[in-house]
């Protein structure tokens, strides 16, 4: 996979192409994450090839369906187990994200892996995902947002653009210091 | 042996024997361009956008009076607008303007009582031949005749403006508004403005 972008969830079904000996080969189904159906099919063959003696040129895709999350009105905790290839080896990893949809959490994961570990999407394999109950959240940085009466100020912000002017942060030169304190 | 044919002088189409209903015996030796005849019917007056109606206050954008807010009195046959300042308020006389060069505002003046003389049409504003051909030579010599506003025009202006001034006066501040010039200042975004 070359690009990440906003990830979607797909269910891809495929099998070996039927022959005279095997008229009805066994079909396989993989649920995976990809930015679009084309890449989903490509990833299907990549994974299938590792499990069975199957490849694109001798097989066929029966079905590609995008799985859309129904409830996107609540924030959920997601745990994602991955395996990725770094420059020096292969690692397993478990990460947690908060989002309204699993695909959002997976998108966050790809972005974060790129930022923290310089890992490209092609070297990340998602092993398992799960929506977690609050008590099952392990990571401290996610735990702090699950507490019941959490609140925090937004202490340091750059002011928006004043009317007719560019935002302070956008200007090349300015004669005023930005106000970053807001109550 | 060479045969000489009298061509009858320089390039001219031979006279057609139209009178006898016959085509000419010979084709002309040279092609003489004949102006194309337009098959189009007489053109209808251009449409003026719906925001401009009699009584609309429009902002002039070009010419000597650019920036002036004037009252549109009617649309002439040529598609040009007949406007008046009124002259007494902002110095704009009865004149024709191209609607492409005005901003129509949403402000309307009641011009139902203003009657424009029937003589005021496109021909009324046409420049006289003499005025058009007044060359620069004359101008620099200083003996070009000065444009004189005819008494007829003065009378028409008076007649139109009398009723128009009454209509303008019935709305407070409207007189000052028409007297003021329209300008853009800093942070004015014409595409976002409401007129």
């Amino acid at each position, binding site marked *: 996979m070359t690009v990440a972008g906003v990830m979607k969830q797909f269910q891809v079904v495929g099998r070996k192409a039927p022959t005279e000996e095997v008229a009805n080969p066994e079909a396989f189904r993989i649920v995976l994450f990809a930015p679009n159906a084309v890449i989903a099919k490509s990833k299907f063959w990549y994974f299938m090839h590792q499990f069975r003696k199957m490849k694109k040129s001798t097989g066929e895709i029966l079905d590609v369906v995008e799985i859309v999350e129904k409830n996107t*009105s*609540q*924030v959920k905790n997601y745990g994602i187990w991955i395996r990725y290839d770094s420059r020096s080896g292969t690692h397993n990893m478990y990460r947690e*994200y*908060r*989002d*309204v949809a699993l695909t*959002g959490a997976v998108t966050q994961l790809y972005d974060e892996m790129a930022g923290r570990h310089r890992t490209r999407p092609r070297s990340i394999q998602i092993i398992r995902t799960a929506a977690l109950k609050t008590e099952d959240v392990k990571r401290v*940085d*996610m735990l702090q*947002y699950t507490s*019941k*009466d*959490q*609140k*925090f*100020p*937004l*202490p340091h*912000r750059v002011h*928006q653009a004043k009317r007719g002017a560019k935002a302070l942060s956008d200007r090349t030169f300015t004669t005023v210091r930005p106000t970053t*304190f*807001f*109550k | 042996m060479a045969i000489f044919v009298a061509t009858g002088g320089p390039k001219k189409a031979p006279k057609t024997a139209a009178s006898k209903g016959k085509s000419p015996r010979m084709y002309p030796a040279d092609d003489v361009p004949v102006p194309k005849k337009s098959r189009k019917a007489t053109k209808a007056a251009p449409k003026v956008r719906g925001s401009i109606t009699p009584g609309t*206050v429009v*902002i002039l954008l070009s010419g000597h009076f650019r920036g002036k*807010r004037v009252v549109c009195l009617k649309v002439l046959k040529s598609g040009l607008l007949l406007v008046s300042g009124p002259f007494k308020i902002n110095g704009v006389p009865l004149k024709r303007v191209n609607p492409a060069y005005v901003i129509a*505002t*949403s*402000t309307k003046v009641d011009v139902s009582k203003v009657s424009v003389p029937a003589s005021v049409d496109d021909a009324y504003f046409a420049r006289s031949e003499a005025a058009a051909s007044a060359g620069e030579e004359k101008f620099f010599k200083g003996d070009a005749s000065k444009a004189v506003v005819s008494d007829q025009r003065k009378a028409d202006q008076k007649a139109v403006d009398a009723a128009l001034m009454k209509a303008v006066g019935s709305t407070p*501040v*409207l007189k*000052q*508004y028409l007297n*003021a010039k*329209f300008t853009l200042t800093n942070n004015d975004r014409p595409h*976002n*403005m*409401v*007129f």
Partner: protein
Amino acid sequence: MVFERYVEVGRVALVNYGDSKGELVTIVDVVDGNKCLVDGAAAGGAPRQVISYSRINLTDLKVALGRGAKGKAQKAAWKAAGTQAAWDSSSWAKRLANKKTRAGLNDFSKFKVMCAKKSKSAAVAKKLKSYKK
């Protein structure tokens, strides 16, 4: 340096960017340190969405809400707290409303505003001068 406005469930905020710009929303859940889940059901009807903190401005207003509250609960909470009225009477809201009216004025009305401003400042200056003497 004490803070008065917090990111928290029930906090009312004003969206300053995007399709819902200028609409009031209620924070119904905190996603993480960069974004939260907001809902405009009780106010202008901005859709329930995850939004970045940089795209909202927190207000002084807060309503009592449970986490992830739905539209009905939000409306009830707003009504109970009189949030809309409180917002409308705030100078922030008035300024925004004023700005909106001014932007919608036609050319003649703008001129009238200018005249009114002029006469007002003239009157003020006159009065001021009388005190100086």
